[in-house]
């Protein structure tokens, strides 16, 4: 074993991905910590209170990033699911499956922080507002995807069936985005759009962007870590897994 010639197994996709992700994760983790540290300090200490909402508005610094990540990650998951379905790339299914729990977590957190913000602002934790309802549906789509993937024993069938679910569910994302325009219910419209200047103070806007970036970096790190575990599980009998463990490399 000590003699290492041409290690063909090293060039297989799963092994390469496993190694590359292993190198990348610490960087994304460090960025996550740094960005959250700066963002939390700015958001909770430096940024002034809102003149109407007082300090309750500070929930925005986690409410908006979690809601955006819930939506971004769903689209990303559906894209990977589609790649896996169309081109039969197994790594794509691994990535889609690895994204789902983190996307579901962020979607849940956006609902949770929204409820805790809604109570002092609107007087209620929950209403069947278009934005809130479509966000709840997003959470159910994530959970449905995960349940379906787990329910089918045959890996290829599980991958295909859940990929179709993920792709069909994508229609919900624009519905969430435009819900505040299409149905004029309780949730406010967008404060930040691509085409116009944000309708908030610069310090708040900058803080929000830093928190969004922090949530992105966290997602990348955790999804890569979960994809690695998922790969190990699927390939636990493969040669490259054994070689890495015997080499003391994890």
């Amino acid at each position, binding site marked *: 074993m000590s003699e290492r010639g041409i290690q063909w197994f090293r060039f297989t996709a799963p092994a390469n991905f496993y190694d590359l992700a292993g190198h990348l994760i610490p960087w994304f983790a460090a960025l996550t910590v740094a960005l959250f540290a700066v963002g*939390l300090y700015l958001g909770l200490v430096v940024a002034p209170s809102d003149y109407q909402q*007082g300090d*309750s508005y500070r929930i925005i610094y986690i409410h908006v990033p979690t809601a955006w990540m819930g939506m971004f990650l769903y689209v990303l998951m559906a894209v990977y699911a589609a790649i896996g379905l169309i081109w039969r790339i197994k790594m794509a299914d691994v990535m889609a499956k690895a994204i789902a729990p983190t996307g579901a977590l962020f979607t849940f957190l956006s609902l*949770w922080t929204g409820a805790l913000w809604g109570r*002092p602002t609107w007087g209620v934790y929950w209403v069947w507002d278009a934005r809130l309802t479509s966000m709840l549906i997003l959470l159910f789509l994530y959970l449905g995807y995960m349940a379906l993937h787990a329910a089918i024993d045959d890996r290829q069938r599980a991958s295909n069936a859940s990929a179709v679910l993920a792709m069909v569910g994508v229609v919900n994302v624009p519905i969430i985005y435009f819900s505040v325009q299409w149905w004029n219910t309780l949730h406010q419209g967008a404060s930040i759009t691509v085409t116009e200047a944000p309708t908030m103070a610069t310090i708040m806007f900058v803080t929000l962007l830093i928190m969004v970036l922090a949530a992105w970096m966290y997602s990348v790190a955790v999804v890569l870590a979960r994809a690695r575990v998922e790969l*190990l599980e699927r390939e636990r009998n493969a040669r490259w897994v054994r070689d890495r463990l015997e080499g003391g490399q994890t």
Partner: protein
Amino acid sequence: MMEFLAMGGYAPYVWGSYLVMAGLLVVEMLQLRYRRRGLMAWIRRMARLRAQEEKQ
């Protein structure tokens, strides 16, 4: 400090949001770590068994 913690009277809402988020992110990372550790232990055990069989 007390003033900071009071969040202008909105403490339960603000901290209820931030702490639950922090808690759930930590849970997600720990869950992943346990899953990975369990799997590693299984792979090592199987490797050892295979090595023993080869010896016999």
